[in-house]
Every structure is written in structure tokens, then in C-alpha cells.
């Protein structure tokens, strides 16, 4: 269906080709998953299929890409529109019209299909994607998962033979991601659509892939093959594969179900080591209660004192956004050294809570205190000493055109000693030169730079909104190490995230928000283990034992081996 013949792409001004030596064929009706770390040219490779690379982006394409027999050298993207449907990373920049139904029809209108065909296909697609109730809704009012489904639907209506998706589930909560993946699964099975998809969150998608296209490192030729065998060598892999590699399972399981079947021996071994998660809990994962008693022991004995030393204290909080009550009766206390993960659907109020904690939104009722200050009544200069927020789009925090200028500005803003921020950047991001433009940094590096800028003011409370969006596993691991270090230094950290694996790695406590209320709040193991959608893969595989991460299991096994 898609044939690459010795394809390489070189962008203008680049010394090296971004991708090279691509020589393979994707057969019809397969779901092919593009796997690789950030910056290996996954998006570029996807772009060559729709013809956007090089017709739209510029650069030089050597070799030949044919889709359904059409050569992308002679066919512009618009002439491939009836065989290739493309959905980019941000669904919002994909929409041309303003309501769901018009959006679904737009592509067909461009192709000049007859009105009765259009009508029929729109109805079919509305049913296929479960969008029938939303047909007349303005797109701007939809949730993230709904928007992503509309974006997929809008390229499905012309009945393309190939669907190209760039990170379709990265911005979605686990349930919405399931929705989108179920739709893709159905397209492949029922309609025989060929799907080519890039995604960082492999734990969500790898089990659906018929084949994996592995781009292991920049400039290396990609390999197409069986998911299990390629996952054994891939530099990026989901926790289920990590656990499989650790336990030496062969063939490597890709689904929780397969892994559970083979996990009996491992469970026994873990039970024998004696270093069960229950034993470890108090001094590792559960160190917070201890820390909390220690803190209150040091700082005073009464409850009021404890509330004052809390990094953040939210009581009976309600926030309105227009006529919508975004938060209702929210109570949350975060003490120093504690990491709290806020989880919940898109639109549950996670970002609203973070915005309220930095005073961007005013509470309608209830109280918010951040280290004794009331955020919305505190001036920005004073407030950054109490609380820092790294927004969903870290680029929003960066204005200057070099890293050095950014650091100087941050020192000035925080009235810190000159060089404070630069020292932080060097520590967190070794090897970044002063004259680098923030835009040229990778997603993970930019996040770290924004984090350094925020940390310059040494806020005791650190907030992060969706920090792992667009990060690969390596960048995520670095972020986890970094945040653990900060928590150990006594920073209180609140993360709003959809990433269950991140929450399992990092958080002492998880608070689940639904419809603007906190519906569950407690230690991470208790909350995530009992929830089917928020449980990490390791937990699902090793249930009923309560393990959260591969790292935990590895440490327990090492300890067990050492003792034996």
C-alpha cells in the first residue's frame, strides 16, 4: 500500500539527512506503529506519506514514495487527499469549519462527492466514531478526546486507504485514548484501512500494532518487523516490555494479558524475596506520613501550625469559569517534600486547580493558601517565591532568543544572584550552550529550561501541568530523577497528568478529580491499584501483589539475589 524506495529527506540548511535509507513496504490493512526516541524523524517520515514532505515543508526528498500506486513526487498533497488521510499532533489546527458535521463533510466537499454520498458517509462516520450526539456542536466546545475523534472522522469520510496519525493519544486521558484506539482498531479490522501511526505512549498502543517500524537513532535506517522481536531491541519500550526483559520472558509479551500468563514465576520469586511492596512502603514510597509527622514535630504540635507549614492548603474551594463551575468543594493539603499527582479526565478541573494555586483564577468561594500567601491577592514578584508553575506549553514561559538571555531575565525577575538560573540550567541540562535558541531545544529540554527558570526563585511549591506530553521514555526518566531530587530537597510538587506510569513512578499521593470535585485522595498504591484506568501496567501484571513500577521490581529482585 505504501512503498518507500531508498528514501532520504534532507531539510534546507541541515548537514545530515533527517531520515535516510528507508526502503520498505507497508502492506494493505495493517496497523504500523512508528517507534523511536524524540528527534529521529518520525514526523518527517509520516509527512512523506501524505506528500506534505517535501511539497509543503521544503527540503529534498531522494528516492521514491508511492501510496496506492501514486508517486508523491508528481502528486501534491491535495491530489493524494482521496487516498491518504492525515491527522497532525494538534487536532485544533486541523479544523477548517466550526461544527462537527461540517467538519466531517469538508474533505468530501473538496473532492466533489455528490450530496447524497456525503450525507450517507457523514451519518456512517458519526455512528462509527460515536459522535452522533455531538453532530451540531461547535468544535471549540468539545473535549480533547472528542476533538481527536472528530479530526480522525474528518479524514475518514473520503474513505482513504491510508490513515497517517502523529501522536493521536498523547494529549488524552486514558479513557479517551482507549476510545480513539478502539476506533482505529475497528477501521483496520472492518474497513481494511492501512494505519501508520507515531506515538510516544507505547504502553497504550503497542498491543494494537501489527508491525512496528523502529527508528532507533537519528540517521539510522528504520527496521520494519514483528512488534515482539523489535521491542526486544528497541531503545524505547513500555513497562510491560521492561518487565518482560527484566524477567527474561520469551517471546516478549506486549499486552498485560500475555504478561500475566507468564508472570506466575516472577510473582513467586517476588514473594520469596520478602521485600514485598508492603514492607518497602513505609520507608520508600510511604515516606510522606513519616515526613509529615517529623515536620509537625519540628515546627509545632497543634493542627493550626501544621496547616501553616503546609506548602499549599486548599479548603472548600469553588472556582467558576463563566457559567461553568470548574471546581466545587475541593480540599487539598500538600506538605513539604510531598509529590501529589492530580489525575482525571480532560476537563475535570486539574488545570483550573493549578491556575488557582498560582492566582491566575480567583476562587468563587473557599480559601487557597500557598505557604501563607493568598495567591490571587499577592503580587507576581512576591508570589514566585511561594509557588512556581510550569504550564502545559513550556514555551509560554520563554521570551528571550537565547538561553543566556533567558537566564539573565529569570535572575532579574526572581531578584536572585546573577548566575543562579544559569547554574541550574547547567545542572539540569548539561551541554546546552548560552547562544542556543529556546525554540531549537527538544520538547524535553524546553520543559527543563522552563523548570530551571521557575526554580530560580526557589519556590517551596512546584506545579507542573502535563509535563510528559511529547516526551519520550528517556526524557521522562530524566524528568523523574530530577523531580525526585527536588522532592528530596523539600520541594512540594503537584503534577497534573494523564500519564499513569509517571504518577506511579513519582507520586506519594494521587488525587483524582471528576467534574470539578476530588473523588479520591490517598497514597498512590491505594488509589491506583484499585482503579482499572489509572493502574500502571506493572500493577496490572503483578496483581494481587501491589507493585507500581519496573524499577521497584528490579530493586526487589536485586535485593533478593543479594540476600540469597
Amino acid at each position, binding site marked *: 500500500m505504501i512503498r518507500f524506495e531508498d528514501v532520504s529527506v534532507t531539510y534546507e540548511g541541515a548537514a545530515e539527512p533527517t531520515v535516510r535509507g528507508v526502503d520498505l513496504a507497508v502492506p494493505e490493512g495493517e496497523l504500523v506503529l512508528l517507534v523511536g526516541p524524540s528527534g529521529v524523524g518520525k514526523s518527517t517520515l509520516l509527512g512523506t506519506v501524505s506528500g506534505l514532505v517535501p511539497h509543503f515543508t521544503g527540503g529534498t526528498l531522494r528516492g521514491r514514495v508511492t501510496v496506492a500506486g501514486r508517486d508523491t513526487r508528481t502528486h501534491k498533497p491535495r491530489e493524494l487527499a482521496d487516498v491518504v488521510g492525515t491527522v*497532525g499532533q494538534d487536532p485544533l489546527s486541523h479544523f477548517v469549519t466550526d461544527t462537527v458535521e461540517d467538519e466531517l463533510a469538508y474533505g468530501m*466537499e473538496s473532492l466533489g462527492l455528490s450530496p447524497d454520498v456525503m450525507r450517507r458517509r457523514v451519518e456512517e462516520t458519526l455512528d462509527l466514531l460515536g459522535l452522533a450526539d455531538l453532530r451540531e456542536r461547535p468544535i471549540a466546545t468539545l473535549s480533547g478526546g472528542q476533538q481527536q475523534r472528530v479530526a480522525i472522522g474528518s479524514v475518514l469520510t473520503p474513505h482513504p486507504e491510508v490513515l497517517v496519525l502523529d501522536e493521536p493519544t498523547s494529549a488524552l486521558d486514558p479513557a479517551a485514548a482507549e476510545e480513539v484506539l478502539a476506533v482505529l482498531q475497528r477501521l483496520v479490522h472492518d474497513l481494511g484501512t492501512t494505519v501508520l501511526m507515531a506515538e510516544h505512549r507505547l504502553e497504550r498502543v503497542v498491543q494494537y500494532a501489527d508491525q512496528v517500524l523502529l527508528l532507533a537513532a537519528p540517521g539510522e535506517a528504520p527496521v520494519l518487523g514483528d512488534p515482539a522481536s523489535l521491542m526486544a531491541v528497541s531503545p524505547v519500550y513500555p513497562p510491560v516490555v521492561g518487565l518482560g526483559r527484566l524477567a527474561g520472558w520469551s517471546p516478549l509479551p506486549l499486552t498485560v494479558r500475555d504478561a500475566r500468563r507468564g508472570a506466575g514465576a516472577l510473582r513467586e520469586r517476588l514473594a520469596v524475596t520478602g521485600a514485598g511492596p508492603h514492607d518497602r512502603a513505609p520507608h520508600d514510597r510511604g515516606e510522606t506520613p513519616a515526613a509529615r509527622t517529623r515536620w509537625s514535630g519540628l515546627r509545632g504540635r497543634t493542627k493550626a501550625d501544621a496547616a501553616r507549614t503546609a506548602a499549599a492548603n486548599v479548603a472548600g474551594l469553588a472556582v467558576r469559569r463563566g457559567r461553568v463551575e470548574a471546581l466545587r468543594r475541593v480540599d487539598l493539603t500538600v506538605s513539604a517534600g510531598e509529590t501529589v499527582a492530580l489525575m482525571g479526565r480532560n476537563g475535570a478541573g486539574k488545570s483550573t486547580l493549578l491556575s488557582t494555586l498560582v492566582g491566575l483564577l480567583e476562587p468563587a468561594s473557599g480559601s487557597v493558601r500557598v505557604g501563607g500567601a493568598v495567591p490571587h491577592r499577592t503580587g507576581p514578584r512576591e508570589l514566585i517565591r511561594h509557588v512556581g508553575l510550569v504550564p502545559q506549553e513550556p514555551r509560554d514561559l520563554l521570551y528571550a532568543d537565547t538561553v543566556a538571555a533567558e537566564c539573565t531575565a529569570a535572575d532579574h525577575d526572581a531578584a536572585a544572584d546573577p548566575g543562579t538560573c544559569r547554574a541550574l540550567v547547567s545542572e539540569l541540562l548539561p551541554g546546552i550552550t548560552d547562544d542556543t535558541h529556546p525554540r531549537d531545544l527538544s520538547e524535553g529540554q524546553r520543559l527543563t529550561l522552563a523548570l530551571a527558570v521557575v526554580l530560580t526563585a526557589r519556590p517551596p511549591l512546584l506545579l507542573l501541568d502535563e509535563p510528559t506530553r511529547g516526551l519520550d521514555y528517556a526524557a521522562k526518566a530524566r524528568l523523574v530523577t530530577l523531580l525526585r531530587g527536588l522532592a528530596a530537597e523539600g520541594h512540594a510538587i503537584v503534577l497534573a497528568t494523564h500519564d499513569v506510569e509517571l504518577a506511579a513512578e513519582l507520586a506519594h499521593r494521587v488525587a483524582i478529580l471528576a467534574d470539578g470535585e476530588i473523588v479520591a485522595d490517598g497514597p498512590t498504591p491505594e488509589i491506583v491499584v484499585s482503579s482499572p484506568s489509572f493502574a500502571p501496567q506493572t500493577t496490572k501484571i503483578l496483581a494481587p501483589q501491589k507493585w507500581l513500577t519496573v524499577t521497584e521490581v528490579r530493586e526487589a529482585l536485586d535485593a533478593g539475589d543479594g540476600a540469597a
Partner: protein
Amino acid sequence: MNDHPSTAPGALRRRLAPEAHRSNALHPGAWWVWALGLGVAASRTTNPLLLGLLIGVAGYVVAARRTSAPWARSYGAFVKLGLVVIAIRLVFAVVLGSPIPGSHVMVTLPEVPLPEWAKGVRIGGRVTAEGLLFALYDGVRLAGLLICVGAANALASPARLLKSLPGALYEVGVAIVVAMTFAPNLILDVQRLRAARRLRGRADKGIRGLLQVGLPVLEGALERSVALAAAMDARGFGRSAPVPAGVRRATAVLTLGGLMGVCVGTYGLLTADGTEYGLPALAVGLFAALAGLRLGGRRSVRTRYRPDSWGVRAWLVAGSGIAVAGLTIWAASYDAAALHPGVVPLTAPTLPLWPAAAVLIGLLPAFVAPVPADSSVPVPSPAHSEEPS
């Protein structure tokens, strides 16, 4: 809803107009004709009572028939703009004086002496009640016009209106739609980035803050437009059908010739000695340009998905607007004094009975236009539904 027996007028209204959905949606053109009809009527009178009635009619119809769509919220913005226009008009009347001779001096401002060449311009000086009242009437008229346009904007989706354009103008229509979604996105970006300044410990208010986010906002807007252009290209925007060279040439000749004819015709109509060729030239030019557009539409392969049909209800809505405009124009020529109450000497305006009745015809859409689904059901606010616990 069955638990609450609806009031008699409510039941009547529901019987007259069905619930709105895609297939019985009122043609957006009908809303525009209606609103422009009210606007024409507003421009023909300075009677504040009649203008108030017009604004009330437009407001009532908007309240009864607007949806919860984002574009429907623009009505409030237009009303605010109208108030600003009135305020500006009054300030000008105070500062620059008014040509209206008046004897009721309210206050005398210090007058700025101006050089000889600026004769006729006055800054400061006497402010008379007559002048102020005249300015107020004038301001209310402008505000009324604006509010009528706002009503059309709130009631008819701008994108759907553009869908009714002829095929050859489609690209222009898309450019306008994209520009219209661009502006709200730009405002959102500015708000987000100004909020982000607060996170850096800088003041998030003031003009400096706005200037510093300028560059990142433009960058973001540019990136978004490029992404949208790529998405549109990948979805088949701009595909064209092969057209024989003859047709292409004929299109060019007809369009260009037609536009020239329109120019010549307009010139003829406006100059004193060209009246005899003006009208025919204009007619021929218009005809040729329209034929050119129609022929040009052949190049486009586009089809239309569920275009809005112009039905009986659309005729009623558009007709009510035309009736209001027509009757007011007629009334203005028949009884000019009632529609333009004098300010010298100061008199209290009275509401002329028949023109007022004519304006009330404009309420017809509130009874015949389909009722938007979500406004017919009172939305229970989450606060109320959650309270009992």
C-alpha cells in the same frame, strides 16, 4: 419539562416554530436580510423612542432564538460597542461643540484659541442642552445600526453564510472564515501569554506586558496558520477540475469586461451628463460579471454538503425585515417630523403610533424561526442540582 405546565404564550410559540436542527435551519441570508431591514429602519429615524423600540425588538429576537455557539456571544460585544459609540459622539459634541444653535447653556468650557487657518473648528466653549441632545439622538441611531448587525451575527453562523457564496468565490470565503477564527485565537494567545508573565514574576497587566508578549503571540499565530494550511492542503483544498481553454478565456473576458461595465455604469450614474448610458452599462456589466462568476465556478470541483434551503420561514423572517424597512422609509417621507423630533426648541419626543406598529413586525422571527434546541430547555445550573446534599 412536562412537570411544569408551560405558560400559554410559551406553548403557542412552540407550536408556531419547531425545534431547530440542521435540516430546518433558517437560511443565514434570511437573518441578515431581517437585520439589515431593521438597520435601514434605524438609519431613517432619530426618534429615541422608536430607536429604543427597534433595539428592543432586535434584542428580544436574539434572546429568543440565539444558540449557545461561540459566535452567538458576539451580540454582547456589539451592544457594548454601541454604548461606546454613543459615549464618543457625546464627548465630541462637548469638546468640539455642535452646529446646533441652542440657548440652554449647561456648562461653558474654556475655549482653545486656534490659528486663522483653522477657522470653523472650535475646541471647548459653550455646551448646550440642544447640542447634547442632538448628539445623543445621533449616537443612539448609530448604536442601533451596530446592534442590528450584531443581532445578525449572533443569529446566523458566519461560516454558513459564506457557504452560500457562488463556487468561484469559495476561496475568498475560506480566507474570511480562517481570518475570523484567527482573531479569537489571537486573543486567547494574548491572554494565555499574559497569564504566563505572572508565572515569571512580572506584572501581568499594563501596556508593557502586552508589548512583550507581542512577538511570541505572532510567532504562535504564524505557526498555527502554517499548520492549518498544511491540514487544508492534505484534505484536498484547492483541487481544481480541468477546464477547456475556451471556457477559461470566456470566464476571464466576462469577469473583467463585466467589472469594467460596472465601473463605467457607476461613473455614468454619478456624473451629470452620463445618465442615459449609465444604467444600461451598469446592468450589462453586472450581468457579464455574474455570468463570469458562474462560469468560473466550473473550475471548482467542490460540492456542497446540506446547503441551507430558503423556505417559507426564511421568506417570513426576511419579509418582516423588509417590511419594517419599507414602512419606516414610507413613514419618514409621509410624516418626517414624527421620526425626527426637533431639538430646537427642546421638546419631549413622542412615539408615533403607526411607525411603532411597523417596527413591531420585526418581532415575527421570534415566533416563526425554529427554536434552538438547547435554549428551549432551561439548563439546570450545576449549583442548583447539587445543592440539596
